[in-house]
């Protein structure tokens, strides 16, 4: 299973446990959390805490907008971008350290 499918199911599970309280609300991967009344802005804070704690990322202030966080699809894509850019950052940092060590 591709990693983004894992993200999608983990995020869906988090939303169901924390905001649907057992309701059988069916929502698609592209449905807006805000428009569907699933999450309000306090809920977004809870989602951000979940993402930071579960995936070890830091959600920056300028990233706090619906394009990144307002649907399963948006969160999954944001998370994939975020993790790959952090990975690239780590590789670059490692290379710099190694070059520094060789000098």
């Amino acid at each position, binding site marked *: 299973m591709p990693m983004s499918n894992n993200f999608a199911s983990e995020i869906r599970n988090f939303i169901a446990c924390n905001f649907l309280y057992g309701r059988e609300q069916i929502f698609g991967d592209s449905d807006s959390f805000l428009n569907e009344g699933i999450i309000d802005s306090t809920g*977004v*804070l809870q989602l951000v805490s979940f993402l930071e704690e579960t995936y070890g990322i830091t959600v920056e*202030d300028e990233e706090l907008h619906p394009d990144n966080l307002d649907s399963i699809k948006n969160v999954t894509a944001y998370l994939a971008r975020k993790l790959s850019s952090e990975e690239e950052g780590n590789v670059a940092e490692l290379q710099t350290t190694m070059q520094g060590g060789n000098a």
Partner: protein
Amino acid sequence: MSASSSVSAGSVSARAISADLLRIDAARETEKITSRLREIVFNQLKRKGAVVGVSGGIDSTVVAFLCARALGKERVLILLMPEADSSPDSLRLGRAVADALGTRPVLEDISPILKGARCYERRDAAIREVVPEYSAGYKSKIVLPNMVEADRYAIFSVVVESPDGKQKKVRLSLNAYLGIVAATNFKQRTRKMIEYYYADLMQYAVAGTPNRLEYDQGFFVKNGDGAADFKPIAHVYKSQVYQLAEYLGVPQEIRNRPSTTDTYSLEQSQEEFYFSLPLEKMDLCLYGKNNGIAAAEIALAADLDEKEIERAYKMIDSKRAVARYLRAAPALIEEVHGL
């Protein structure tokens, strides 16, 4: 006559470019409110007068003036309830209101009650979750980003100021945000408790002071300033409250004072705490939305672009959704008959 009843949605376009959209006949509106107030307080609620908590802001002052005009100044109790974080101006202006009405206010410093409830201690502990150095001598407030200039969430940050005057702003975690709000809500609830003490003592009714923008958008604390026996300006837009104030002879300094929450130790405007836009523009957006006016027309009147008005309309909807809980009466399992 209120603007909302005098201007139909269909006839609005010719007037839409003018902020006069919210112009009212203040004399007639005053007559309507005071006549209803007498009916509500004396006949409907069967109370002998009204208790008004006065903060020195425009809304509570206008309510105090309306009550005095409707019921007689001797039947209005002006309560001044400062606490440790209140601006000294609030008390001074509250006294000015009582002076202007020719009544003697009652002063109740609520700081000891708040200390007993550990309001300040709990709030400071919540702030320390995101600003560990926050301690005695620091000041703080919480602020929202501007949600009209771009698509953003209403996520609060705390602004802290150290004793040497350095400020910093940190986004709040969920726990810190909830902790700060829950603790500071003691302030509005304590004031309401005192208001009902005097209401019980004197067989008076308690006035609520929200204007239409606040009432509609949930800018109040449930069972705090949201609790009251009557709310005489809940149908009046903020800009119209200023028109009533002028007509009623409210002191100029109060009419010129910027709207603040007077809840946090750093000065906090209502727009940075809740509304994102200057109140007169927010008023136009709410009026436009309520009357089905296209965003493009309100954009001209408010000197904003159409996209910003569309965001403001969306923000109004999302705040209304949250406000439903704040206004809701207690839910019952089934209807109770015979009451």
